């Protein structure tokens, strides 16, 4: 029997977080496996509970940080937001990649479970803080750095494993 879980958050992952995992995390396989699980067993967003902006995904592939596209696509689903369209709507050329990710994260709060988190690195988090006035208005969206991010991923994975254990009883 397949177990489907309603997770507390939807997750957006950025370029820097994937790069950090690839360079710094001792057991990369465990994290990738947990992200795969969270995605595959999501009730509301099957295969898309954890997403990445498609531009970040493609850049990670081009730089050979992502070595197995198919497996990583299962762990973090590449989502297209329509960058050109967004640049036309919002004041043209001044829009940067950080703001596009924030917009994507905020869009994700509009669907169940109405909570989204952006997982990034300490360094990249500083760049997002430039948009603090915008972020302060969004109560159900947050940004987490490396260690906090791992805690969130482990929490969601624990939701899955608890549900699975309940079903097996």
């Amino acid at each position, binding site marked *: 029997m397949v177990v489907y879980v309603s997770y507390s958050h939807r997750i957006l992952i950025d370029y820097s977080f*994937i790069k950090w995992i690839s360079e710094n995390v001792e057991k990369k*396989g*465990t994290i990738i*496996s947990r992200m795969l699980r969270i995605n*595959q067993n999501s009730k509301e967003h099957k295969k898309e509970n954890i997403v990445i902006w498609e531009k970040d995904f493609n850049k990670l592939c081009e730089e050979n940080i992502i*070595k*197995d596209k*198919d*497996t*990583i696509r299962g762990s973090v689903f590449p989502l297209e937001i329509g960058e050109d369209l967004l640049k036309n709507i919002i004041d043209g050329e001044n829009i940067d990649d950080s703001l596009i990710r924030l917009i994507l994260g905020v869009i994700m709060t509009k669907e169940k479970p109405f909570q989204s988190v952006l997982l990034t690195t300490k360094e990249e988090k500083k760049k997002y803080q430039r948009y603090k006035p915008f972020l302060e208005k969004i109560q159900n969206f947050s940004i987490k750095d490396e260690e906090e991010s791992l805690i969130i991923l482990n929490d969601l994975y624990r939701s899955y494993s608890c549900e699975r254990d309940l079903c097996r009883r």
Partner: protein
Amino acid sequence: MNTKFIMVELTFSEIELAGDVKSFISFNSNSCDDENLKEMALASDDDELFKVTKKIASPLKIINIEKITDEMLENAL
């Protein structure tokens, strides 16, 4: 002038839950020609993860099913 045509079969792979693969195979009896693959999939636990490869030109045709291994995950990044 001799012109040679080389047929290249384009494929794509996706990660799937074994439970979903089993339903897919059950509902589409011609979806997998390899009896060993079919048997392996049908005997698996529903919650197991597979990498499933299909033809782009005929996405109802499964050409390979691999169990996700620790090594595969460790080398993905």
